[in-house]
């Protein structure tokens, strides 16, 4: 696993997402209320740019006609067929056993442990100002 530095934390405020390619893999990194998540930007269904879809909540029901809508902003809906994926795990809601979006662990690493540009994280002590968002690939 190689760790890749994405950006300084303040370049990815809550509610935003960043698209990038690492080793030809299209990835998006999200900041959901201060937590960071990474997903492969390719829907496991037919290959759409999954991460361009809206972030919605989870609709569940224990009785027909009643809907509980929770986990706002934590479900991504594919811009094509509308499949719902859990941003935390990549799990799909329609067919959890067969389909899962590829999730990448995303961490915030303190600036002291990463080197700025050429965007490969190495454990070198560098004095930097801010914290960095780092992806393990």
């Amino acid at each position, binding site marked *: 696993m190689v760790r890749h530095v994405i950006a300084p934390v303040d370049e990815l405020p809550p509610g935003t997402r960043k698209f*990038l390619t*690492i080793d030809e893999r299209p990835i998006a990194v999200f900041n959901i209320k201060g937590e960071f998540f990474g997903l492969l930007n390719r829907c496991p269904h037919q290959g759409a740019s999954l991460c361009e879809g809206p972030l919605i909540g989870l609709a569940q029901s224990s009785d027909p006609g009643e809907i509980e809508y929770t986990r706002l902003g934590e479900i991504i809906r594919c*811009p094509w067929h509308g499949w719902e994926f859990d941003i935390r795990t990549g799990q799909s809601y329609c067919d959890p056993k067969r389909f899962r979006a590829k999730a990448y662990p995303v961490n915030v690493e303190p600036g002291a442990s990463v080197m700025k540009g050429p965007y490969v994280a190495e454990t070198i002590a560098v004095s930097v100002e801010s914290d960095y968002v780092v992806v393990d690939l």
Partner: protein
Amino acid sequence: MNMQFRTGAEPSSATGVKTAIADCDIHPARATATELYPYLAKRWHEHLETYGKHAYQGMMEGPPYPKAQPNASRRDAYPPEGGPQGSSLSFMQQQHLDPNNVALGVLNPLNTGQGLRNQDLSAALATAINDWQIDKWTSQDSRLKGSVVVANEDGPAAAAEIRKRAGDKNFVQVLLLSRNVEPLGQRRYWPIYEAAEEVGLPVGVHAFGFGGNPITASGWPSYYIEEMVGHSQCQQTALASIVLEGVFERHPKLKMIMIEAGFGWAPSLSWRLDKSWQRLRSEVPDVKRPPSEYIRDHIFWTTQPMEDPERRDHLFELIDWIGWDKLLFATDYPHWDYDEPSRVLPAGVSDANREAFYLGNARKLYGLS
């Protein structure tokens, strides 16, 4: 290691299709409400602005059921210059036609004058849409071919529009929708079939339309999914009507295409029709052969939304029963239930069948080999 950033979301393009394909169901849209005005007499501008469009359904604008995605289209298909999905030729080329190697794209315009109660308006909008298809699309990109949109409830007017476009290479078929005031085999629609056969155009029957009938034979359902799945049942009934009213007996050269209603139902409908006809054929003496034979000889199906069983051997059996020479590949771009060409046909298909499925059948049917 190689990392590039994008400043924002870029239009997603396909993984790239290596061999050329036909897309037999593309939906071009108007960018603005007045884009058709140059093709419409001025009286219709005023009419539309004063009275609007009255369809055989309750809503003047908008659909009877809320859609799964905006404009029932992919969220990533908005042209960068603005306008709804499907309204920009250059963006359609960039996002779909070029990367997907579309060698033949058949345009099926929707939200036109079909399904309207004012038949003069319906006819005016039909001819306008046909002129618009030439101007904006088929004359600008030779891969694209249009469909002759007609006033579906006015047989003579529809026949006149078809004859007007006879021999025009911009068009490869006549377009009807599956839901009309009556089932499509009824005699009010016969002038359409007569004219189409005469000018040598097949008739495409696309899912949807408004005819004032609830989308089930037991009234109006509650949910969008019922409408979406219901297109399959509407198409089955429309096709049964066409066969049982003897349309193909009277028009032996006519071909028809069932568009966007699936094809999985074709075998079971054929078997049911045959079984009923064996007992009840004295009621319909004009149907001289088993219905399944008319279906076999005259009907094609576009593939989208592609049947998606868990086991691909089931899909292959289904297609064997219909015929690999009967399917016409389609994506339904830019709608949300779009079928990605590189993903929908599982591995295990012979090269010959694959070529027929993706391109050969369409080229042959539309006379574009």
